[in-house]
């Protein structure tokens, strides 16, 4: 939720500042770096950013972009250096203090985060920053300060749903369930599609002794997020309480099956964040996410792994496959082609590339890919059968 907002903000900053860049070469590099970043080509994004910096080290935009890439790679200290470069060039640069604060928060440095968020507030007051301040106070166990921060966020922007949801969490932790429900209602009203909010509301209703009302919320969550352990568990509990024991058993059992995966993901995520330069931790995180069907998150983890070992064909292949699962045919093709440019003898990749071409109607490209595969494996029956289907 927060990451999503954060990206939106950054996109606005970047395009806004880019209009002022007079040197077309630098403008081109920034565009390329931004594109590489969005495409998950983190090393390329960093290289291009460095090229731009060498041409004009006084351009805040490119340092800012570099900070974002490094943040994505969990290289927080380097990211912070980049953001401070931004500030040394333009201390009113929108988002720089905010991003430093967020990095602080991810490293359990809540007081520093608060300080940096307030710097952001001085120049660019926003409900989003105020919510982050509240979150930092909450991390420090200062519930009253957190409460005030969320209320201030609402004063700034009464339509900012996360502020209401954060208040709802605070109320719940304080045992004020009715108050929590009221705030959650407001949050959902503002962001009716937010599944996390729906889950939270279901939990509050269950806690409030209203299992019948909680069931539709949990059902929605398990449909949208079939890996959600707690939604399954709570749905099972709620169904038990309204007398639907058989259905309850099903969801409780499902929750039990999911839990192992959830635990595994959390373990790998913690370890990867603590040791961001460890390739295998990101791979294990990606694999555990993928096995739970969390495709987008798995791809993100593999992208970080790839930035550590850019020539690793297996990771590139995983990313291509996941891109395909996410419906991004173009990226899958580019990834497969990248692999084949590194090693043109990998039959599986030629085969996959053919499948992608075929499924997107590019018959000639599919044929060419499979024929290349057959050169290396003339007796591969699967590929022979694939080629036959093209003839039909």
């Amino acid at each position, binding site marked *: 939720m927060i990451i999503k907002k954060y990206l939106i903000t950054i996109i606005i900053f970047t395009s806004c500042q880019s209009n002022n860049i007079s040197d077309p070469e630098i403008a081109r590099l920034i565009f390329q770096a931004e594109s590489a970043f969005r495409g998950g080509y983190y090393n390329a994004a960093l290289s291009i950013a460095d090229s731009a910096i060498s041409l004009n080290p006084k351009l805040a935009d490119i340092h800012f972009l570099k900070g974002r890439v490094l943040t994505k790679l969990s290289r927080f200290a380097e990211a912070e250096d980049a953001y401070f470069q931004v500030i040394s060039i333009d201390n009113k640069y929108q988002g720089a203090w905010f991003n430093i604060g967020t990095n602080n928060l991810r490293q359990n440095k*809540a007081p520093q985060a608060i300080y940096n968020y307030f710097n952001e507030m001085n120049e660019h007051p926003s409900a989003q920053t105020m919510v982050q301040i509240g979150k930092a106070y909450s991390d420090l166990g200062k519930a009253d300060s957190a409460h005030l921060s969320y209320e201030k966020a609402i004063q700034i922007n009464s339509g900012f749903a996360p502020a209401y949801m954060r208040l709802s969490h605070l109320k719940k932790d304080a045992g004020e369930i009715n108050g929590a429900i009221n705030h959650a209602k407001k949050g959902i009203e503002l962001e009716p599609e937010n599944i996390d909010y729906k889950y939270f509301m279901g939990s509050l209703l269950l806690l409030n002794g209203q299992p019948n009302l909680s069931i539709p919320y949990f059902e929605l969550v398990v449909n949208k997020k079939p890996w959600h352990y707690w939604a399954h568990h709570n749905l099972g509990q709620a169904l038990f309480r309204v007398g639907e024991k058989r259905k309850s058993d099903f969801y409780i059992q499902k*929750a039990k099956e999911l839990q192992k995966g959830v635990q595994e993901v959390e373990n790998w995520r913690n370890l990867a964040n603590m040791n961001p330069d460890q390739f295998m931790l990101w791979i294990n995180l990606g694999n555990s996410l993928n096995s739970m069907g969390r495709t987008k998150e798995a791809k993100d983890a593999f992208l970080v792994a790839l930035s550590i070992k850019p020539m690793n064909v297996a990771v590139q292949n995983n990313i291509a496959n996941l891109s395909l699962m996410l419906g991004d045919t173009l990226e899958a093709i580019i990834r497969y082609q990248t692999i084949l440019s590194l090693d043109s003898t990998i039959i599986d990749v030629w085969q996959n590339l053919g499948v992608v071409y075929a499924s997107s109607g590019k018959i000639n490209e599919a044929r060419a890919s499979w024929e290349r595969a057959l050169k290396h494996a003339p007796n591969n029956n699967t590929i022979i059968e694939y080629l036959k289907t093209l003839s039909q």
Partner: protein
Amino acid sequence: MCARIFVIAFIVLVSCNKQVSSPHSALSFTNVTVNAGLADFKHVSGAIGDKWFPESMGSGCGFIDYNSDGWEDIILVGGGDWTEKSSNLSPALYLYKNNKDGTFVNVTNESGLGEINTYGFGVCIADYDNDNDQDFFFTTIWNNYLFRNDNGFFIDVSAGSGLEIDSLWSTTSIFFDANKDGFLDLFVGSYVDWKPENDIWCTLDGTTKNYCTPELYNGVASRFYQNNGDGTFSDKTEAAGFLPSPGKMLGAAELDFNNDGWPDLAVASDTQRDLLYLNNGNGTFDEIGAISGIAYDENGRARAGMGIDVGIIDKTEKETIFVGNFSKEMISVFQHSNGNFFDDISGVSKVGRPSLMTLTFGLFLLDVDLDGDLDLYTANGHVQMGIEETQDGIFYREPGHLFINDGNGIFKDVVPLIGGPLSTPIVGRGAAYADYDNNGTLDILVTENNGPAHLIKNNNFNNYLRVKIKSINSNRDGVGTKLIAITKDGRMTRKVKTGSSFMSHSETTITFGLGENRAVDSLYVYWPNNKTDIFLDIESSQEILLVESNEN
């Protein structure tokens, strides 16, 4: 089940003041460690700079009436030295005899415990051989010890007891009569597969070594031993359904959430899911922690469970499980709802938020102000020295929590209000309670890692009834006996149990706080063998001994 109304034995041991309860802000405690003669104790972690994982974890403490004189004595785990490094080994155990005048004297050597050299963690005390005295089990990082009490002298009967095991890091243990055959069985919690050879380098600041957290080590499964009734035990871990198990277990408490009369077991695990073993009544257990809802936090993550206790905290008569967790993890509070399900009421109970930043080890429920409901004490302290430098709002030394119950299961931490010895920051670990001075109030014993023990005298008088149990047809200590006292103000349910807290043992005498009531109108005793006795009109502010009838 037959209900009879007669008093079998009624021994008045103590008579005490009848005073009116104080408001929370007037609650008062005194640290009497020095005057009580306990100042010579210091837990030894063995630390000499290598930051070996076990050094940060110990250790436990307990109250034991080792000489059966009706006064609670004190047993403390000394920790230990690494034999590879130290030539001058520290005592593993300390036993202090109660002089009945508020002081204690060190009787470790005279009681046979002076020659024990190991690296110790916890104690659990019970009359496992039903011979009317208190024996105890002692967990260590290597082989555990079973000590049989022979007239106040302890004999190491580990060899041949069936409790000899491979060198595993054991933590908390609990005696309970799992199959209700009249002999106490033993559940022994195991932690992780750590040895000096596989020690891992961990750091907070990226340069200097610090203590690791358990995620980095493989868990070791806990074990369950059935008491054979002849002084020996049989390992029934697998047969009874305790395998597979994630290990990393630090706390265990007996409960009977479904009221079927068979003791269940709740287990706190460090960075692994908390466990709930449902007793099937046929010698086997089913682990239903995840199904019940106690295993994980609201994000599906396992917490760092340490100390644990169970009790009835409100008028619902439903059992509630409390688990102490790591810093930035609230104390877990799960109340039984229906079926096999529990509700997370950490927020509603108001225990959650005030406990968010502290790292809780020792934890138990007691009626500290004798007003009739169970309050909650926790001993806190971090495992990482210097944590202040890397994590804001977290401290190595932490004050304890004393959550006072308003009678409806809503708690308030009064330590910031009352100050005093409970507010002194310490590196808290084990904790136990007993009325060591026989004045009716429950006093608190707490240990520090690599530091002293503290005996905290409770000055908050009120009317009370203390009940000792002696079972004849069940296990001698009456572990598993449920007592319900009814006064004009309502009912109080308590259970005789061992275990709970963190590697520590509290007295098994039951204390009912009566507030302004001068009598218990009726006292129901549900013995483990399903018999029930009812006692009527019992005067307040005395201690009585109830001996189970031999009749069927």
